[in-house]
């Protein structure tokens, strides 16, 4: 089979490639698919996952301000302390959880969204029941629209955001605001 392929592949070329005709066609089809998919995505500037024009960070930014929805956990203590949800070990250490949190950081008060937040909290409570290292007991979750005025050299502890509550979900029952 290989020898026949050599004869095929030598037609019109100066050497043998030791690839059957079928494999040669398959290889070219795959090469064509990858190149055409990527070229189409770039030329028309459209997302065609897994092809992309990769626009990340490609625009010029001039404003030193940031507005971003941020999820806070309300700790079940007397003061009702608020901490960033991504600072809790369970969400910070697990790649899937921390990526999932990004999908919750959107400015919406849709009831479906609140149900999803409640599920997230219920799952956290279940995990916490299994291991105390997961994080502190939580009374609820709050999604704020946060805005920062960014100053080079100023970290989180120094930069206090302006916040506006979008949604609050309590353990057990939940309500939007």
């Amino acid at each position, binding site marked *: 089979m*290989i020898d026949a392929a050599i004869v095929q*592949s030598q037609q019109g*070329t*100066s*050497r043998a*490639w*030791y*690839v059957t005709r079928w*494999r*040669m066609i398959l*290889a070219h089809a*795959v*090469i064509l698919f*990858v190149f055409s998919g*990527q070229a189409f995505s*770039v030329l028309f500037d459209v997302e*065609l*996952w*897994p*092809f*992309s*024009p*990769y*626009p*990340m*960070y*490609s*625009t*010029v*930014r*001039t404003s*030193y301000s*940031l507005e*971003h929805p941020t999820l806070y956990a309300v700790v079940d203590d007397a003061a009702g302390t608020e901490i960033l949800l*991504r600072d809790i070990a369970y969400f*910070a250490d697990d*790649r*899937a*959880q*921390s*990526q*999932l949190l*990004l*999908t*919750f950081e*959107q400015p*919406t008060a*849709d009831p479906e*969204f609140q149900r*999803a937040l409640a*599920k997230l909290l219920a*799952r956290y409570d279940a995990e916490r029941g299994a291991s105390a290292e997961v994080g502190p007991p939580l009374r609820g979750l709050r999604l704020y629209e946060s805005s*920062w005025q*960014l100053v*080079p*050299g100023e*970290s*989180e502890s120094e*930069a206090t*955001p302006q916040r506006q509550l979008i949604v609050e979900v309590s353990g057990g029952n939940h309500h939007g605001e």
Partner: protein
Amino acid sequence: MASERIRHNLKDRWLEFWFAPAAARPLALCRIAFYGLLFVYYLTYDFGVWALAPADSWAPTPPFLIFDVPRASHELLVLLQFAWKAALLCACLGLATRAATAASFGLGLYLIGVMRSVSMNHTDAALILVLGIMAVARCSDACALDRWLIGRTRLQASRPSGDYRWPVQLIQIATILPLFVAGISKLRHAGLEWVFSDTLAIVLLQNHFRTDPLLPWGVELARYGWLCQLLAAGALITELALPLALVSVRARLLLIPGALGLLLGFRLFLGPNFAPLMICYVFWLPWRQITDTLMHQIRTRPGLAALCPAHLRPALAPAQSRHTRPR
């Protein structure tokens, strides 16, 4: 006549680039490293959590949209991820390799596709292409349990063939495309202003608050505008020059570590985790030189050679004596 010669010359160059006969072992070693690292990376990753994502965040990627593929339940996602991880391990070991690489691609396309239908980012798009290419590559013709299990002499390398070269070439292209195209996007949307403005300083600051970079140095770096512009220029030059790595060994020695440095820098200072793409860079490692060096070490140290089982020792003979490169 001249045009005929040019046509033949171009065809020869094209075929030489993709199909110049190569040994089976480097592709097989790429297979082991690629699937092995993927298995380790995703071993503790829980795809099941994506069933918890808000319903309004579901924006199907093209493969899901075209074939109307739904998001699976939590239980099904957990089951599928178990099968995917098993397939990655089998592909690494070379066990039922054809089926394992095909399943790694199919299940990976679905599981990673679910993630990207909920939360679009570009950290693992190239991984899907690499899994797809490996699914059709003849990557089990060396260093695979399959060959040992069916009882053939597994240590004689298969005849060099173009079949062992084109997947590596295409995967190398797939791994540099994200950065190269990102460079083109910057030129298209911002031009050189992307370098000669405060853009990188602002991105470093914004990502410090919005995402989760490993190091909190972004806010400090942002104080030095000239340094940010220098870093931006370095990043853009590296991205746009990357295709040179395909044709020049010297450029490769500089640009591939540079590209890996960029991907690592993204994680350290900006947040996005490009580990899946970094794993794909194993296809840039000089496997032939690595194995030659290893073999030389074993051959020149009788103690090490004696540790090898008797039936493996013929493989330690110099490569030239076992097969000659066909011309």
